[in-house]
């Protein structure tokens, strides 16, 4: 089965042109795969029609879990398993538990959020990201459109739409499966043979 990816990329250097271009492209019912910008562009998420992240809800749940664990831990340790008199206070004295519960809430929420984010975005050290255009880390904004996902339009149509909306250049970008294969073994071998400073693959 063909799993190679075919993209067409538009290059913009002005973020206000980019914003209007994104709007125009989306009005024509074209799905944008991703936009890469060297700096955060305000209102881009609105233009792309992104929904609010559900991460805060995850954070809340992680936090609640942390609080529950902390209170349970303290009650079980100091109240049930090994009661100790500390400062003449009751074994289970809620005010004393507050700082620990607070810290555990923060700890669970923070680690939980980072973990969730890594998991959801599939971030791992040996991941090989698709680099659409290296200039997106310098001074250009890159709009990537998946050719397969927009197969009702031809490549030429997409190119002209990008050019009409103000793209300075329109390029095609293809990724093969083997290029982007995330392999832990390959990562480790590369790490030993090339060291941490060099990349595991050539960037174009």
């Amino acid at each position: 089965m063909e799993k190679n990816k075919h993209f067409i990329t538009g290059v913009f250097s002005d973020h206000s042109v980019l914003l209007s271009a994104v709007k125009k492209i989306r009005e024509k019912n074209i799905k944008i795969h991703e936009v890469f910008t060297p700096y955060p562009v305000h209102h881009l998420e609105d233009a792309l029609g992104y929904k609010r992240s559900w991460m805060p809800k995850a954070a809340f749940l992680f936090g609640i879990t942390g609080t529950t664990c902390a209170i349970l831990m303290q009650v079980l340790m100091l109240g049930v398993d090994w009661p100790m008199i500390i400062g003449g206070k009751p074994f289970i004295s809620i005010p004393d538990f507050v700082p620990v519960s607070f810290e555990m809430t923060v700890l669970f929420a923070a680690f939980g959020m980072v973990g969730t984010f890594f998991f959801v975005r599939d971030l791992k050290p040996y991941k090989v990201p698709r680099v659409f255009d290296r200039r997106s880390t310098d001074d250009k904004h890159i709009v990537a459109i998946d050719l397969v996902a927009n197969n009702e339009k031809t490549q030429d149509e997409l190119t002209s739409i990008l050019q009409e909306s103000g793209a300075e250049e329109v390029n095609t970008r293809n990724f093969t499966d083997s290029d982007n294969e995330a392999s832990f073994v390959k990562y480790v071998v590369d790490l030993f043979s090339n060291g941490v400073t060099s990349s595991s693959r050539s960037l174009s």
Partner: protein
Amino acid sequence: MEIVAQNIDEKFSFSPKLKKQVFIIGIVGIILSIIGILVMNFGGHHGHEAGHVAEHAMAEHHGSADWVKRLFANLWINNLFFTGLSIIGVFFFAVQYVANAGWSVILLRVISSFGRFLPIAGVLMLVVFFFASHDLFHWTHDYLYDEAHPEYDPIIAGKAPFLNTPFYLTRMIAFFTVWSIFAFVLRKNALSEDANGGTKYYRRLVRISVGFLIFFGVSSSISAWDWIMSIDTHWFSTMFGWYVFASWFVSGLAGITLLVVLLKDWGYLKPVTENHLHDLGKFVFAFSIFWTYIWFSQFLLIYYANIPEETVYFWERLKSDYYSKFIFVNLFLNFFFPFLGLMTRDAKRKITFLKIVCVVVLIGHWLDFYLMVTPGTLKELGGLGFLEIGLPMVYLSAFAYVVLSGLSKVALIPKNHPMLEESLYHHT
């Protein structure tokens, strides 16, 4: 991005209708206070038995009548609360400059308008202290310092170099004068910037703000010891300055947010979007948690160490039949309510939510000051009646009148502020 050029030459007009509403609040407040005083005088017994015991104890101290004491205590609470609201206006204004904040530029006039009440608050404070010093502050009695007197108090006498009426008055006058001058100078420079433009005034304002913040850092703490902590003369807490400041700051932020939201409701401040409200909401949310943090830090250390001279403060409050419930009401209104109410992003961006939470927080922090002042001054005679509802309304009406009429004299948006553009396009 669609916000572009808007009308930024807005001016707030203090309409006769609004003036009438402000006056009605004041008049209803006065009527309620008078009813409250009458009820205390002719309303028969005090509701709780402990009152009589305390009454006998008080009689030996040649204090004023109960209702006079309660009136003084209430005046003092409201003085503190509204002084806090107005000084936070100046403080928050200065913070914006020192932090080089861009988002808040279109709110600066509203923020600084709070400072206009400061001179009045100072005069009220002095007048109330002049009449009520013996009823509010135990340490003002001369016999405490007289070794020959049977009621000589070595602990209070030891504090005499700091806690004596002339020095106390000097500090009070100095603080209010310096604060008012800073408020005036900051406002004046901001207005000159509006008239003349250029970055000269901005840089000058930053420098003045730094000076103010340094002075305020010291003076807010000392004023908290003076005006509140010295009521319970034997007791002391190193957290107290921060605690009062936190309470002031949250109520000031809630007041600023409320005024911004109301102005938007009345059709002003069009460039203020939900993004600005979001940031104000974050401030109220964050500093409600800060207040709780300080409150709890003070409580936990005293609870844990269990030293009698420290626990007396919480003993008076938690072990009292009357005050104990207020501690929990206080924590609910000032922590749980804003914490859960403003937790989500949507809540911070909605005018209705902000209005409800800010009003609750303001009431909550008034109650916080009530809890700081009343147990020490009135012992078990404290109450929450018509007087406690009426008097804040009188103060609120005076405060609103001063702030709103001040606001109507200047343009609502500082059109020559160097960072105005950033504020207009603010996006969170």
